[in-house]
């Protein structure tokens, strides 16, 4: 290149750079070091994944709910540190005699983040908005479909029947029949109250299914609730979501000025970031790291277990499993005490039934099935199933609160089964790569599998109803068992009992029957998930429902 051409090239490049630079102005406010919110400190939380969007109604995953929970509130709340239902935006709720009409008395001092008043009309607007969904919304609004069963276009099948504002701060919600889930389900993040004006302006129900996914309306990027934090921004390029303190909050204002959720998918990186002090906490530290994290001055906040890990058995895939003796033999073969001690974190417990002991309907008289390999062999011989082959599956590429390391749990169970002469055929698939399809297919493909459940709210039906209530479409193949329909009917009947004590007793009896007479699957354990916060962070109250609210958190004593 000649010197002349070089000069021309460099001059052009410099001119281009200068033009670009003149177009780009710094958008920093130049107001010095932040405002009042920033002065109050920032809590930076390492999130395992990015949020789906910010409208909790359409959200399905924990990472999204963790963020929306700080901005939204429901009519009912959850007592921090427990699963107990407490007043939130409603101060009282009373049912009519048959449990189909619920009158909610609302707080009269609440406004939405956009200044709109919270009142009975806003409540009814929200319920009608959730009820009246287009085709895409009906599929995407997963939690409404799950708890309310149907939408406006199929109103006869829906639990929700209507909402009436009977006073400025009194709303009556009508449901089709009593159920244990109502009104507890109103603690669900998806059923939170949102600003009617913002919903309207942001075309909140304008969801569409296109291009093999859902496209969300503008509202999903600019949510408006009543909670202690307001939406700040989502810096997608840097993977950060910022929430700002709501200084006009009706309750006690949050201690920190900002919460930043930083997306760090890799767990070991989250730990390193915590050690470097660039984040203040993260969820689900690996139980093997708990001691080390504590030694480094961090605080591991262990939640009470509100989950169940079970060994699913599928008589449709292996007819030998139809025999109760075979199922009992498998249960006796498992050394669950050792599994809990060696593979699960401190605080884990052997399960006696398909729900944790904090749920109403838990049967305290049930004892764990004893680890008894001889009894297992005897039962197998009696059933003529000695040397039976069991295709037993576990998932890869996943950890769950009830299952920190699926492979190790599986190995422990497999070893026990082989010790009583069962010929175990190992099958694996990745969680999203076929495992769930094979487990929940109709019929399921595996003879046996490990899976579990974390409760959505304090309800027996949310556990055993989810597992066995849907006769035709459950993972245990109970429709092929002589007692399957009876169990589903009993669950429905118990769920519809209005009196709480009576309902609890009915669920206790069903739990006894499940464990002593039916044994459709084998409950293994309850495992306490934890979250960890760094030095100087105070006020985190671990929630059994993994529903922590960060308004009580302080960082560095601020």
């Amino acid at each position, binding site marked *: 290149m000649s010197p002349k051409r070089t000069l021309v090239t460099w001059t052009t490049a410099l001119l281009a750079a200068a033009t670009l630079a003149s177009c780009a102005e710094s958008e920093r406010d130049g107001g010095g070091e932040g405002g009042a919110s920033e002065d109050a400190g920032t809590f930076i939380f390492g999130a395992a994944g990015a949020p789906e969007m910010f409208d909790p109604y359409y959200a399905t995953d924990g990472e999204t709910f963790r963020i929306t929970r700080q901005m939204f509130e429901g009519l009912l709340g959850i007592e921090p540190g427990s699963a107990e239902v407490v007043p939130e935006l409603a101060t009282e709720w009373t049912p009519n005699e048959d449990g189909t009409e619920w009158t909610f008395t609302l707080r009269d001092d609440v406004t939405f983040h956009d200044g709109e008043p919270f009142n009975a009309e806003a409540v009814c607007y929200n319920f009608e908005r959730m009820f009246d969904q287009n085709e895409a919304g009906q599929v995407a609004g997963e939690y409404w479909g799950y708890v309310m069963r149907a939408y406006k276009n199929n109103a006869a099948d829906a639990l929700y029947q209507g909402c009436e504002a009977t006073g400025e701060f009194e709303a009556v919600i009508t449901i089709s029949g009593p159920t244990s889930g109502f009104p507890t389900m109103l603690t669900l993040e998806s059923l939170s109250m949102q600003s009617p004006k913002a919903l309207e302006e942001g075309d909140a129900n304008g969801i569409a299914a296109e291009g093999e996914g859902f496209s969300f309306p503008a509202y999903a990027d600019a949510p408006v609730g009543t909670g202690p934090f307001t939406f700040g921004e989502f810096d997608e390029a840097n993977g950060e979501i910022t929430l700002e303190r709501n200084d006009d909050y009706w309750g006690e204002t949050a201690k920190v000025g900002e919460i930043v959720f930083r997306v760090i998918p890799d767990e070991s990186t989250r730990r*390193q970031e915590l050690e470097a002090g*660039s984040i203040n906490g993260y969820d689900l530290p690996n139980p093997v790291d708990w001691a080390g994290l504590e030694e480094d001055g961090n605080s591991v906040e262990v939640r009470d277990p509100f989950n169940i890990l079970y060994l699913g058995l599928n008589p449709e895939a292996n007819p030998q499993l139809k025999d109760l003796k075979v199922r009992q033999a498998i249960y006796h073969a498992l050394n669950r005490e050792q599994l809990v001690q060696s593979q699960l974190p401190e605080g884990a417990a052997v399960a006696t039934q398909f729900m944790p002991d904090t749920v109403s309907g838990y049967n305290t008289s049930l004892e764990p099935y004893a680890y008894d390999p001889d009894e297992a062999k005897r039962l197998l011989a009696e059933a003529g199933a000695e040397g039976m082959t069991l295709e037993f599956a576990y998932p890869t590429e996943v950890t769950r609160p009830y299952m920190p390391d699926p492979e190790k749990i599986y190995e422990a169970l497999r070893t026990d089964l082989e010790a009583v002469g069962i010929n175990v055929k190992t099958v694996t698939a990745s969680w999203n790569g076929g495992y769930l399809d094979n487990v929940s297919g109709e019929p399921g493909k595996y003879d046996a599998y490990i899976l579990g*459940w974390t409760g959505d709210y304090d309800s027996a039906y949310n556990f055993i109803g989810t597992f066995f209530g849907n006769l035709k479409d459950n993972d245990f193949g109970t429709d092929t068992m002589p007692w399957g329909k009876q169990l589903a009917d009993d669950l429905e009947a118990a769920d519809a009992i209005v009196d709480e004590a009576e309902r609890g007793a009915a669920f206790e009896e069903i739990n006894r029957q499940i464990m002593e007479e039916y044994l459709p699957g084998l409950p293994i354990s309850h495992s306490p998930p934890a979250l960890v916060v760094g030095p100087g962070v105070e006020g985190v109250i671990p929630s059994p429902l993994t529903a922590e609210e960060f308004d009580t958190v302080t960082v560095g004593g601020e």
Partner: protein
Amino acid sequence: MLRFVLRRLIQMVFVVLVLSMLLFVWLRSLPGGPVSAILGERQTTERRLALEAALGLDQPLPVQYLKFMERAVQGEFGTSTKVLPGEDALVVFWSRLPATVELTLLALFIAITLAIPLGYIAARRVGSLSDTSAVIFSLIGVAVPVFFTAFLLKYFFAVEWQVLPVSGRQTTGLDATRVTGLFVLDGLLTREWDASWDALKHLILPALALATIPFSVIFRITRASVLDVLDEDYVRTAEAKGLTAKVIRGRHVLRNAMLPVVTTIGLQVGGLLAGAILTETVFSYRGVGDALATSFREKDYAVLQVLILATAVIYVLVNLLVDIAYAVLDPRIRTR
């Protein structure tokens, strides 16, 4: 030259078409899918079927592909289900591209500025201690997987000595202005020097790890190429004519030795993009590689398709640029 470029661009269209078809069929033949990723434990047959129907995943494959192509010609490549739900996959690609461009450019810059001088010096002092050491070093660079190098770098520089950040692209709360999405450049353009410096610090470790891939190859090719050229008659002739060592080095040896090196650099782009998946994952660096890993794990079909297709297009385009650079370096090619 223009005809050559046009021909290559037409070839590229065919490559992308065939690849899109293969990708479409391959992805959907894998077990599982986005529905499992969305529903989790809540999955039942009824819910799965409803969601599949809503997303059009229950249609026969050819129908799904035709719909995909129909949208694609209108500039819509499918909606993300997990990486950035609700957004078109092409938007996801564009939003992640600057991070990867920044990373690969710095990695290439590090590799080239180290490998070419070292390769030249090693060739000039062939058999010496410095040559042997450099060859061994480059062999290690080839042999050690990039994610392992990344882990080592992160462990020592970020965790143990805490001189550089552990992960991400920019420190939380920096309030940096975004212009191009290239954070270092954005800081320079807006005169937010701290933002630029901070972004550069976040880039150093991933770029160093990623640079080990092209470094080793470029070093070895430079060394071998310089050795070849040094033996050429025209170099001896130049020496006999009494040209200075500087002129011989610059005009005859390096310029001729660079031809295979330039080709190699072009070919390295593919390797760099593959390496970026691992490097970005280790450093939670939000680029195309990180999005690829997430979309594969979460079976985000639309994003996966677009990212792989776009990577293929970049690969073809870069190699086209290499061919053009080749012509600039070698006038004999230009005149053909």
